[in-house]
């Protein structure tokens, strides 16, 4: 559809975001007599993390692919829209409100979240559309955050909400809105507390790029990618199974669980294989079999003992 294709520019030729964004914020604030402060400073800053307990023996998907081939409908529905349209998004300052059935509801500032025990976590990412990546995330277990707010016994689920900022997220304004906003997602409390479930604040050794869900997003590696909600502003502990955006949009095609499962096809396409992005080439795509629970069955299959995975897709 888009006739314009941007020219291919090697990563080494691209001015780092921190530099050109600080130029932009300089221009924006110079009139007020303030130089080099404000929104720009948090983009793709180096981020230190200690090695985490989960490693992967697979080739990493190139950073360029991880940051330019995304589904983030708040910035548009084409895969290249998020990286093209996320430049005006301001991930700082940021707070995440954690409330609901908790003993100590709290608003976490981003600085506080970056001081959590952050680790390197290289995970497979399987999109419901049939493609996959291997991404070196930086993040901390969601359980560590939940512990601080002391969930009550009645809390059974965790719901998540993405920010709504039509002025900074062009996919949220205009005539044809693909989804209702805010984007919402949810997990069962035991899924949320599983050690594999993390809140990611970075990838490839830097803070999260806007198009990947800056400044903080969920990563649940055994579920289809759309469960891993981006740019989170609110986390609530609730008693009943929460609303989730894609299930509301089409319940027949997208379930609450959405665990990666090669044996349960999407009604319109097979989930048996996946295309590993960044491998293969124009004359042959790199397809590989999809693994149950995206290869994390040993870790998470126990969560679903006795559950009919075909009915609870």
């Amino acid at each position: 559809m888009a006739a314009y294709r941007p020219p291919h520019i090697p990563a080494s030729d691209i001015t780092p975001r921190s530099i050109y964004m600080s130029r932009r914020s300089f221009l924006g604030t110079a009139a007020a007599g303030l130089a080099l402060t404000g929104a720009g400073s948090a983009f793709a800053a180096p981020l230190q993390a200690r090695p985490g307990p989960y490693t992967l023996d697979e080739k990493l998907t190139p950073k360029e692919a991880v940051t330019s081939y995304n589904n983030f409908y708040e910035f548009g529905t084409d895969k290249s829209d998020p990286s093209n349209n996320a430049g005006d998004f301001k991930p700082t300052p940021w707070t995440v409100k954690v409330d609901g059935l908790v003993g100590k509801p709290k608003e976490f500032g981003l600085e506080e979240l970056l001081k959590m025990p952050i680790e390197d976590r290289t995970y497979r990412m399987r999109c419901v559309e049939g493609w996959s990546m291997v991404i070196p995330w930086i993040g901390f277990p969601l359980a560590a955050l939940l512990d601080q707010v002391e969930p009550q016994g009645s809390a059974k689920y965790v719901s998540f909400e993405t920010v709504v900022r039509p002025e900074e997220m062009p996919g949220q304004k205009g005539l044809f809105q693909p989804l209702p906003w805010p984007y919402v997602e949810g997990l069962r409390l035991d899924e949320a507390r599983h050690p594999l479930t993390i809140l990611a604040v970075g990838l490839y050794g830097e803070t999260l790029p806007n198009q990947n869900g800056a400044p903080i997003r969920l990563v649940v590696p055994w579920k289809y990618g759309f469960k891993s909600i981006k740019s989170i502003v609110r986390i609530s502990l609730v008693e009943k199974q929460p609303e989730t955006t894609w299930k509301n949009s089409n319940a027949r095609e997208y379930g609450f669980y959405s665990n990666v499962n090669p044996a349960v096809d999407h009604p319109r396409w097979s989930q048996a294989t996946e295309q590993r992005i960044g491998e293969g080439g124009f004359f042959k795509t790199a397809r590989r079999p999809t693994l149950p629970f995206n290869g994390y069955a040993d870790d998470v299959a126990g969560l679903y003992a006795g559950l009919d995975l075909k009915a609870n897709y």
Partner: protein
Amino acid sequence: MSVIPALPRKFHGPSIWALYVIGLCPAAWYFYLGATGGLGINPVKEFEHLLGLWALRFIIATLAVTPLRDLVGINWIRYRRALGLLAFYYVVMHFSVWMLLDLGMDVHAVLGDILKRPYISIGMVCLAALVPLAVTSNNYSIRRLGKLWIDMHHLIYPIALGGALHYFLAVKSITTGPFIHIAAIALLLAYRPLRKPIMRWKRARKSVDSPQPAHR
């Protein structure tokens, strides 16, 4: 009546050949981009989708020829065969890229998808239905088949509908792009049953507006 200057007759033939060349340019350009790394991170899917989109655009152009002549007075009927054949070529390329590059000639996956996925089944039926139309798109067949040729080529209406449905079912959500293509096909198909009353009304109005020579 015509709103644009008429093309001199001697250019009719060359202009049709030019249309074939221009019409195949998008495919050639996208192939070049794909082969040189210019189609993004997932070039095969991108190429496949672009070919499908252009197939729909040529079907839309084919269907637009008659309303354009009826309502605007531009007669481009001489280009209709080329537009229809271009649509067919793009459908064939779209299918080939899916089968050869995307699924890598995995016969099991190809057949499984054709049988199990409604949108792919619809796409296959449309491709199959386009074949006889393409084969009979020559003057000899038109002469030979007569009335049957006209009836047969009305197949383009269900094919266009199928193409729109295939697109509608293949996308995750309806955004501006899919909406415009699907709406164009819907409008052009909706025009067909309205054509007779509209033309009758236009003829009636014309005979009132322009007095007969006898009144002079």
